[in-house]
């Protein structure tokens, strides 16, 4: 160890000095240290204050600051990595598979987007701001943003939905998915009924069979 032992046994025993000189030295040290302390506080009087008058002046936030989760749904590929990696389970994500002909654009990683994100709910009131979801997001659709005013009055206002869809459109897509699932189930049942004749491509067939036209069955 590079540091020498700083003490010897004598230091363990409280110093025994002449009590009277101890008394006066204590008094003197007391007065001096009090005056020194007063000088320190006094020297801070004219110094510039560090207070930031918040609503009037705002401190810029760093681009990394974990303030608010935002999902850019156009870039979201429904991989669910964020949901899997979240330690507190704040994500509620529902997706509906796009029709084969439907063009939803290209994701940032170059692959075509295949899912409608019907629901992308984040419960920010539960978020622990660990940032694992943002790091897990391959397409960088989930990002941190730094709004200056984050507080809300109602806890429900922290339940964010990033799907960017109207309720009607959501219902429409969900109905379509439902119908497709039903058709698939019916086909599976039919297939189970006739096990001998196995068609070579059941999935693609079912996809085309259930919704050949872009107009779905109209919602109730």
């Amino acid at each position, binding site marked *: 160890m590079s540091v020498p032992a700083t003490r010897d046994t004598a230091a363990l025993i409280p110093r025994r000095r002449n009590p009277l000189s101890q008394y006066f030295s204590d008094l003197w040290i007391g007065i001096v240290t009090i005056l020194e302390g007063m000088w320190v506080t006094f020297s801070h009087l004219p110094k510039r204050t560090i207070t930031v008058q918040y609503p009037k002046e705002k401190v810029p936030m760093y681009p990394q600051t974990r303030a608010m989760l935002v999902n850019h749904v156009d870039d979201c590929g429904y991989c669910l990595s964020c949901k899997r990696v979240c330690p507190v389970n704040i994500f509620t994500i529902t997706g509906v598979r796009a029709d084969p002909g439907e063009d939803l654009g290209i994701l940032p990683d170059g692959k075509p987007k295949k899912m409608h994100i019907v629901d992308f709910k984040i*419960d920010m*009131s539960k978020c622990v701001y660990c940032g694992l979801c943002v790091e897990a997001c391959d397409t960088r659709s989930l990002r941190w943003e730094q709004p200056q005013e984050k507080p809300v*009055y*109602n*806890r*429900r206002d922290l*339940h964010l939905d990033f799907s960017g869809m109207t309720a009607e459109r959501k219902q429409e897509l969900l109905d379509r998915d439902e119908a497709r699932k039903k058709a698939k189930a019916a086909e599976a049942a039919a297939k189970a009924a006739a096990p001998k004749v196995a068609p070579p491509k059941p999935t693609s067939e079912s996809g085309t069979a259930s919704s050949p036209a872009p107009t779905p069955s109209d919602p109730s």
Partner: protein
Amino acid sequence: MNQSEIHNRLSKLFPSAGLVLEEIQPEPVCRIPREQLVEVSALLRDDPSLHFDCLMCLSAVEKGPELHTVYHLYSIRHHHRFTLRCIVAKEDAVMPSVSTIWPTAEWHEREAYDMMGIQFSGHPDHRRILCADDWEGHPLRKDYKSPESFHDIPLTNIFPPDLPL
């Protein structure tokens, strides 16, 4: 000294103890019957060449039908460490207390009792430590079910999503 040397020395000092050195990654662990625990512990602390004056950690682990109590020892003087493991069955989860040898074990043992339900005989203050005194069950057991409420305080779904302000 490394672990096997300590184990050898210990076996020499205490041949009847039945100490088994388990090869576990990355550090071996010495298994010890609970009847010998206090004597061996006192030896570990007092033997000048061992001098384990520091109980770093006392942990309770559930492994299948057994409960393990693991003692991580360290000697500040000799810079060596050693691990003891004592295995008891769940139905008979009583361990001798080592709090007379290392006083720090007192709180660790209370925690092990509170969390895992291991009783420590000879403990000076055998109470729960982290949970409330009238809490039921031992939360770290694998089969523990968390209660719905405690003294009429709901414990699940404290903040339902539609709760107003």
